[in-house]
């Protein structure tokens, strides 16, 4: 972390459900900005964060933008290392097929390893 290389590995851990609070959107915005500025980005959905990925969201009914549809753009921004915590998913009765985008299923030790390898972690 002390070497001033211009390319850092930044891990974003998105832990909150969509809509109730705004953290999911803030987290996505930060990650997209990191990608625009050519950083190495990991994106992790953990705890309630996995609920952002549920299919069939339509937030028009609450005058909001649909976060699931925005998450589909991660790939276009070159963010391909997108992980979901298996345990968080199964605790919420969700299967990989319930999710809006293709993601890597990982366990907690893999998330710990991502944190360890990162120069900086944003966790919200």
């Amino acid at each position, binding site marked *: *972390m002390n070497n001033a290389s211009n390319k850092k590995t930044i891990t974003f851990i998105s*832990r909150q459900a969509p809509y109730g609070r705004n953290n999911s959107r803030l987290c996505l915005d930060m990650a997209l900005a990191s990608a625009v500025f050519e950083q190495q980005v990991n994106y992790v959905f*953990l*705890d309630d964060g996995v609920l952002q990925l549920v299919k069939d969201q339509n937030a028009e009914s609450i005058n909001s933008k649909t976060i699931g549809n925005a998450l589909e753009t991660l790939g276009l921004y070159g963010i391909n290392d997108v992980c979901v915590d298996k345990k968080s998913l199964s605790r919420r009765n969700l299967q990989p097929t319930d999710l809006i985008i293709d993601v890597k299923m990982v366990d*907690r*030790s893999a*998330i*710990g*390893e991502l*944190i*360890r*390898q*990162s*120069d*900086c*972690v944003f*966790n*919200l």
Partner: protein
Amino acid sequence: MSCLHTISQSPSRQLLDTCASVLETGDAVIFIEDGIYYCNQKESLAEFKVEFQVYSLVEDMNARGMLKRNLIDAELVNYQQFVELCCEYDKVVSWF
């Protein structure tokens, strides 16, 4: 690379559970704000403390009347020491 994790919400939010599941050897936890109520828990963090160092911010303990209720025997630190810890560990991850 070692990591200092700050936890700033009360135990009812269960942030320590998730945090603990991603900790690596050499990491540490510091309780701040409502996180300091972890110090008032009956269940001891003894096992956890064998592997990980546990700190608690004294200013937040004092504010909440919890200085005498450090049941888990966390190491109390002030803001100066909090800043020093952030230097000592390679990075800081905040749980809020």
